[in-house]
């Protein structure tokens, strides 16, 4: 129960790493969650699966480069302060 803000930040970093690791063609297309299958819902009801796929793709696109820096900082902090 003794959460600190730092543990929340660590949990967020781990979750974003998990999303960034999902590869588009090796994995997501195999299970039908590839990005090229999200087009087609031009009504106002995209559906949860399409929204999730868009979210995963946008997180991967945006967070790829900042995650390098953030992960390095996190590793250095963990090595120094345990």
């Amino acid at each position: 129960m003794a959460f600190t803000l730092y543990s929340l930040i660590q949990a967020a970093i781990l979750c974003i790493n998990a999303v960034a690791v999902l590869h588009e063609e090796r994995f997501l297309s195999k299970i039908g969650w590839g990005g090229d299958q999200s087009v087609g819902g031009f009504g106002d009801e995209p559906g949860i699966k399409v929204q999730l796929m868009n979210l995963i793709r946008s997180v991967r696109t945006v967070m790829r480069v900042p995650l390098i820096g953030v992960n390095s900082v996190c590793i250095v902090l963990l090595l120094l302060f345990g």
Partner: protein
Amino acid sequence: MDYTAAQSGFRQQPNMRLRNSSVDGPDGSQLFDDTSAAGPGAQGVYRNQQAGPQAAGLPGQSFLSDPMSNLAMVYGSSLASQGREMVDKNLDRFIPISKLKYYFAVDTVYVGKKLGILVFPYMHESWEVCYQQDIPVAPRFDVNAPDLYIPTMGFITYILVAGLALGTQDRFSPELLGVQASSALVWLIMEVLVVLLSLYLVTVNTDLTTIDLLAFSGYKYVGMIVGVVAGLLFGKTAYYLSLLWCCAAIFVFMIRTLRLKLLSEAAAEGKLVRGARNQLRMYLTMSIAAAQPIFMYWLTYHLIR
């Protein structure tokens, strides 16, 4: 009340409303009372009185008559005002201060009524927020508008009451206050993030902003405080009873408030609308409302032994 026009405006503007334009306020609905009319007169009189005795009592002081130091003082004050403008402008880019001001424009009557509704929402009839030319009215004029004053005060009071409860059980140490505060803050942030994520996934067109969600999630601290205080005063049974009452009250409060914001108009008026999308929105409303009692119990049960 301008109900139909407000509803059509509600549909067309799913994004954040321009709350910062209401800081200046349309006529008749200013955020804060303007008490500056009495100010300069009184301050001017005070300064004259202060300068008079000083100039008469210290004729040898020629500090302010020296032109160079006068110039330096004027330059210094202009530099200070420039610096303050720059800080204000840059701060407003990161933290929307003008939007935050809207949420703190409360008065005693509003706080009293809102606390009453939070503990006993069963007699309150109309739950819609009044709008004024597409800008939501400040909380002091409409008891249904969300505010941030009650959640902030509730959070701080919860931490103090938690310290008190731990102290009566000889488990208190000053670091525990910080631990309680950061735990509660972390749960609050996680709850707001999960609600934002689920709103995004269900593609609800709503004008609920992040700060609105923060306000609604902060309303449960009132029930938690009531439960813990009752438990401290009257024992464990009173804690469970009052917590049960406050959980039911906050559940009803959240359902009635969120129903108008998340569901489509027809469903919000009580008619049964079929369709997977409306059902999903109903489930979302119910799960947000059901998460409040769970958090209320989770954050207080370790305080009452």
